[in-house]
């Protein structure tokens, strides 16, 4: 019976072959390779035959002199990102939802979605151009207002503000799409009834719109926390200079340096695995907590 159900649709299984092969090769084979985090990998012996060393690489990382700084930078940047870049799209969506002129709304959306499609290299290139100490626009303004030019890109204090500002600038519009869709799904009768009762716009945002999109916010918040330690490599790598490295060295850039540049494969694989584990634990904790409090959860 089971065989018959498979045979009837044999062509569908045939179609499945290539995608499954792709996932086995490019997604599951690297998972098999994760074991080198517990081994002393040497290219001559290969993954399987390299000797086991247990948690040696993890312990070496925890005791290394960069450990504290790398973890601190990663956590600090992630938490700041979550606190600042997560709520802004919600606020923008709530505000846009109040714009009743269709063309104005459309225009604003067209503009604020656009930066999402700008490449990271171009984005950071723009940052360098705008913040250049002698020819950049921002420093011209600072000087015109009587200040002194600021060396933005070579000062580690500016790394996090610039990182977060560019993140907000690039992703706010696009992240607001999902909230706008949720807002559009709110029953208009609620608003009509509230207007009859004399509720102001502000009150309606507070008591209809925000509760209406709360489930969406919760789900996206869980996902954001689950990805908390998953900061992308690209931007930090591009913004990194020898001078701001004490603020810009985060786990992904450290893994790149240790693994790709210095060929310490087992050591850097261990750091990567450590990072991935923290992420999973975070995801489960937040999911459980939110489920207890509000009943909404991801799984």
């Amino acid at each position, binding site marked *: 019976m089971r065989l018959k159900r498979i045979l009837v649709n044999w*062509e*569908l299984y045939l179609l499945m072959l290539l995608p499954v092969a792709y996932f086995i090769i490019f997604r599951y084979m690297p998972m098999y390779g994760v074991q080198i985090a517990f081994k002393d990998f040497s290219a001559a012996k290969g993954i399987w035959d390299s000797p086991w060393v247990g948690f040696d690489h993890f312990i070496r990382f925890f005791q290394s002199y960069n450990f504290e700084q790398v973890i601190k930078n990663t956590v600090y940047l992630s938490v700041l990102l979550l606190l600042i870049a997560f709520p802004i799209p919600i606020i923008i969506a709530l505000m846009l939802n109040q714009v009743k002129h269709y063309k104005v709304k459309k225009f*604003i959306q067209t503009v604020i979605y656009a930066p999402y499609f700008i490449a990271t*290299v171009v984005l950071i*290139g723009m940052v*360098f151009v705008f913040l250049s100490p002698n020819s950049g626009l921002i420093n011209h303004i600072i000087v015109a207002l009587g200040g002194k030019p600021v060396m933005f890109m070579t000062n580690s204090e500016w790394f996090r503000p610039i990182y977060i500002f560019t993140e907000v600038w690039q992703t706010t519009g696009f992240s607001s799409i*999902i909230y706008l869709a949720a807002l559009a799904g709110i029953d208009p009768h609620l608003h009509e009834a509230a207007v009859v009762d004399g509720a102001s716009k502000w009150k309606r945002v507070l008591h209809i719109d925000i509760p209406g999109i709360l489930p969406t916010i919760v789900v996206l918040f869980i996902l954001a926390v689950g990805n908390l330690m998953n900061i992308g490599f690209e931007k930090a790598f591009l913004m990194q200079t020898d001078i701001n490295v004490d603020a810009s060295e985060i786990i992904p850039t450290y893994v790149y340096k240790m693994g790709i540049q210095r060929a310490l494969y087992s050591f850097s*694989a261990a750091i990567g695995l450590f990072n991935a584990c923290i992420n999973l634990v975070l995801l489960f904790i937040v999911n459980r907590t939110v489920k207890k409090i509000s009943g909404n959860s991801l799984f």
Partner: protein
Amino acid sequence: MFSIKRKSSGDVLFDVINYTLLIGFTLLILYPLYFILIASFSDPNQVGTGNVWLIPKGITFEGYGRIFNDPVIWLGYRNSLLYAALSAIIGTSLAIMAAYPLSRKDFYGCNVLMLFFTITLFFNGGLIPTFLLIRDLNLMNTIWPVVLLPALDAFVIIIARTFFLGLPEEIRESASMDGCTNLRYIWSFVLPLSKPIIAVLALFAIVRQWNGFFDALIYLKDENTYPLQLILRNILIQNQPSGNLVSDIQTAVEQQRIVGLIKYGVIIVAALPLLVLYPFLQRYFVQGVLIGSVKG
């Protein structure tokens, strides 16, 4: 006359604040883009001293001239287009091949396979094991890791599957009653109905490939295979424009002046393809995000 729609003063204040903040935010996004545009054809001395901020001054197309005469940038452009096209074709085909069977209720093993794909959203090998795999497969310094690694992920399959789930079941039932095979049905009915989702998937892949540089940074050593983003990185961030861009200029001061102009120009040139695609991007990406969020 009394108008029922007369607004309370609180609501007027609300609207004023709301519009002011939104317009401010929109300008914050728009102005840097506008500035790059006008600076790309203004006299670099005027830009460098802060005289250009609203209208272009001392119009010159020297920057664009040099960019268009630079073989390195053209090569990067060609490479990027090639990788984006390959990535889109391969990724979209694989996504559809996986997603369509998964959308069929009579497909035995659907749940297991769904799990097989979705697990990769939460677990992955990470950078170093992937790097070692590519090395073991002898794909180092070939275009294949750059094209293939970002071509497909489980999220894309989920989006496509959600779309296929919405196709009417009746057509398929009557088609199979008439003896239409699965492949024939997919070719003649499913694909023609799937143009919107194909566009979404292809655009996802194109944007990801066009804007990415990380895989190329790690897996490509030969400069002739560099995508545009790696070349831009040399010009914009490392301040090392390729040999031909300014090599004919004698003084370092003059070189720096022209490099400044070129930087604005390449930003525009690099953004051009996506700018042209933007109306489609906006429409289809919004759709993609919404389809994905229903499931996600």
